């Protein structure tokens, strides 16, 4: 019955190969990597003995394969698992594991430019991976970019993947990016809400929030873009756990948020912070929680205008721009309100394509055009940050 209890823990995503039907017969369970620690802790706390019969299932199936080399290659091609980031298909939407593999490959291929930091764990124990692009120095002034904080906004994680490849491709080739990276670091978190992202692939394509349970409620999850300590508790977020804009029990309650907060504070030298969402085609600056304008409003407004002009130069995609509260709606506890109040002047939020025709389910053939045009706007912001130190 204790093992039955394990069956009920759906968040571990366990796969029972041999079920618990009789007492005194062993039960075989396949445990996904991210649940391993939690499952071991559970078994130990319940006094259940366990042993590992297969250490790495994926490795075993590959080693065990009877396929010839050619069959192996064909099979891999059909499964579309790229061997390097040059063979990664940016014009398709990928699963969380494919993106994690991409990150590791990118680091392996560019060891002098890219490293992977794990800044924390999601609620369900998934790693919060941040790619650091750096040519050296110690704690250089830095730029932050995140995608996928709202898991259903798939064009953002897809664009983030493209940005990562773009950076390594353009360093040493594009003068503007090279100049930036010679003096500044870029940090990129592609799957900022991994539990939510997994859920959109396997359960509910429209899932937005984290996957943390809410005590006393059937409803799961907190809106990670209402959970920051900026105007927290005020109008522009919900106190209802069932709401898509639920702020959470307290500011930074979500590990996905707290990990970034801790990282940014301990780094102490971020100069720009860009959080990427979809959809609406907007470039937004603080505040969302109040209509008091930010001190740097004139500059942020002018820079936004320049950035969206550059974005439009590629395909004519029209963006609106302005403060969050004036352009889209009042929103409290938002990411860039917090980062701006930390002194990170160039704090922006993007809302990528489109304006509602496809919405969250943007066709895959728009991923690369979206990423390319957005990159122009990002370069404008990064370039201005670089040329206007503070």
């Amino acid at each position: 019955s204790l093992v039955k209890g394990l069956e009920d823990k759906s968040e571990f995503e366990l796969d029972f190969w041999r079920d618990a039907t009789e007492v005194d017969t062993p039960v075989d369970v396949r445990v996904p990597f991210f649940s391993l620690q939690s499952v071991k802790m559970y078994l130990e706390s319940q006094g259940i003995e366990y042993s590992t019969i297969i250490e790495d299932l994926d490795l075993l199936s590959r080693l065990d394969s009877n396929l010839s080399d050619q069959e192996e290659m064909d099979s891999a091609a059909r499964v579309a698992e790229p061997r390097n980031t040059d063979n990664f298909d940016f014009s398709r939407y990928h699963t969380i594991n494919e993106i994690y593999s991409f990150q590791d490959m990118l680091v392996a291929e560019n060891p002098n430019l890219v490293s992977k930091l794990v800044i924390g764990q999601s609620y369900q124990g998934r790693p919060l991976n941040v790619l650091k692009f750096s040519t050296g120095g110690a704690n250089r002034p830095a730029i932050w970019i995140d995608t996928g904080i709202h898991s259903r906004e798939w064009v953002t994680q897809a664009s983030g993947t493209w940005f990562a490849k773009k950076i390594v491709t353009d360093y040493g080739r594009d003068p503007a990016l090279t100049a930036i990276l010679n003096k500044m670091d870029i940090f990129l978190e592609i799957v900022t809400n991994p539990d939510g992202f997994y859920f959109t692939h396997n359960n509910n394509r429209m899932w937005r929030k984290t996957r943390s349970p809410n005590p006393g409620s059937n409803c799961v999850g907190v809106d990670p873009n209402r959970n920051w300590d900026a105007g927290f508790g005020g109008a522009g977020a919900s106190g209802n756990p069932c709401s898509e804009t639920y702020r959470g029990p307290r500011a930074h309650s979500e590990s996905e948020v707290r990990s970034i907060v801790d990282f940014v504070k301990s780094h102490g030298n971020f100069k720009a912070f860009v959080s990427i969402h979809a959809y609406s085609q907007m470039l937004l600056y603080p505040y969302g929680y109040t209509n008091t304008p930010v001190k740097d409003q004139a500059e942020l407004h002018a820079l936004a205008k320049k950035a969206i002009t550059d974005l439009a130069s590629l395909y004519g995609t029209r963006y609106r721009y302005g403060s969050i509260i004036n352009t889209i709606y009042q929103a409290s506890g938002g990411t860039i309100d917090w980062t701006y109040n930390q002194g990170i002047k160039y704090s922006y939020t993007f809302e990528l394509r489109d304006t509602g025709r496809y919405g969250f389910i943007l066709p895959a053939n728009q991923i690369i055009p979206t990423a390319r045009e957005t990159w122009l706007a990002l370069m404008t912001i990064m370039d201005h940050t670089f040329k206007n130190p503070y």
Partner: protein
Amino acid sequence: MGFGIIVFLAVIIGVLGSPGVTSRPEAAASADVSAHPNSVPETPEIFGQEKVLVLEEVEEDVMMTGELNPNQYPAQRAAKVVQHYLNTCYGSPYRVIGLNRVHSGNAQDVTDSGRKFQLEISVQDFISNKTEKCSAEVFFPSGGQQRSPQVHASCEELPKINTQAQEEALYQKYKTNQSRLSAELPDSFGHIDPDMEPLWHLGTVASSFIMLNESTENTLYNMAQVANITQLATENEQLKFDYHILLHEMVSQEIIHWKLLFTWSPPAGVKVLQMEQLPHSHHHEPLNTR
């Protein structure tokens, strides 16, 4: 550095500036200005090779009454209501209208009654890609009763686009069919089978009746997905459908499920018979997700 001069410009221009984009005559000579109506001329170089930020606009607090800033949400939300209205009037499997742009807007309180918006907008037919400028009026009634907005719009050109042959062919194709047709338009990856596109368009048009009904000054609706289509027996020469659709409401960020029973034929267009909001069971998490 140059930064001091930027601030100086901001002080001067900020005082004189007006909301909205102003075009800069000297930039018109730039070779980079594209013919696209949406592009903004590049700011000219002032200091050597450095491009300088010219701080010419000052963003104002959100305007709720009087002349509206077309880029802010009040005019945008009202304009979206016009989109829904146009689709209820003119939409078809081969004509789906989208809001392109808000050029200008004006809002007034109507004492004890509600608020009226006057708008100049551009709309686009997604299928022919033709755009048209229209004038429109949206009235949001106030008070306890949950009454839908009232819209008047003059968009004369888009309805004239000829879709007759395609509509007739579609009608014949489905006239004798009766079955569950498919799920999920688009699918998770944004894909729609070309054969199914007209039925996706039909879903957008039929959804527009709901979205028009449900809209207020505090909402902004788009159809997120067609979850399921069941075709029922053709009745009185009208194709009859039962659609399960997902709407996305931007302000609350909620996904709202609706069931929609409607008929369509080329001469009659879409007629909604029944609309029913469905409770969403995402609150009740299933234990076994496989």
